[in-house]
């Protein structure tokens, strides 16, 4: 699944570790989601949406 995590992080000047800390997951998880290697569960997708204060569909796009 495509996503805008890298752009959204850059807009906030967050590193992958900063985002990982906000989500309470590992940096490896953020990296895997950001590079499209791993699609997060619905609860984690909602958590991402909360952290960025956006809707899920504003972060993730269909392939």
């Amino acid at each position, binding site marked *: 699944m495509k996503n805008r995590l890298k752009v959204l992080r850059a807009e906030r000047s967050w590193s992958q570790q900063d985002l990982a800390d906000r989500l309470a997951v590992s*940096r*490896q998880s953020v990296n895997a989601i950001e590079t499209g290697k791993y699609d997060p569960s619905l609860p984690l997708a909602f958590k991402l949406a909360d952290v960025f204060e956006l809707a899920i569909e504003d972060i993730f796009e269909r392939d």
Partner: protein
Amino acid sequence: MTSADTNRATGKGPLFYVGLMAAAYAAVAALAITGAVEGPAIYMLVIAPFGLVFPMMAAANRRIDAGGAGCIGKGEAQRRYMKRVAMFSSLYLVVLGVMTFVLKSSEPHFAIRSILALLPGLAVIGIFWAVGRLIVEEQDEFLRMLVIRQSLIATGFALSAATVWGFLETADVVFHLEAYWWAVAWFFGLGVGAAANRVQYGTWGAV
């Protein structure tokens, strides 16, 4: 933070101690094979290098705290996993030493032999249990998925190897192998699983 940065920040990594342990066991094996040491002295020498597990755990914990290389995240579940594995591995070496020593030095009663022979197996079951608890306790879904994937690959590897070997043994193509070697094959399979994780997800996993 790169792996090199993490090493500088946290001192010697866990792999350093794993390497030391492997070198120590290679030296013990060489001494035993050449006959330089014999009898109970071998068991003492086998147990001694295992003391390196403790600095290895400390190094791994420092790596966890630094959020460094490998697939290590917040780490509470992984910390507990390492403690359990170290505990059951130590127990395994001790009971294996005791079992081998007693069986070679005397002819104990059937019941004693049975209990002694069960103990190393129970210690290895403890390690399997530790992997299971890691899967249950890991809060990071990506890390959990990596452990599950690694365990499934290890299971497939060990069962496949056992099946193929069994038929080859039936046909007298290969020598007889004690069944506990399939547990060793499973642990080797965890390494195969870690490599598969690295290829597909860019990270080794947590086991």
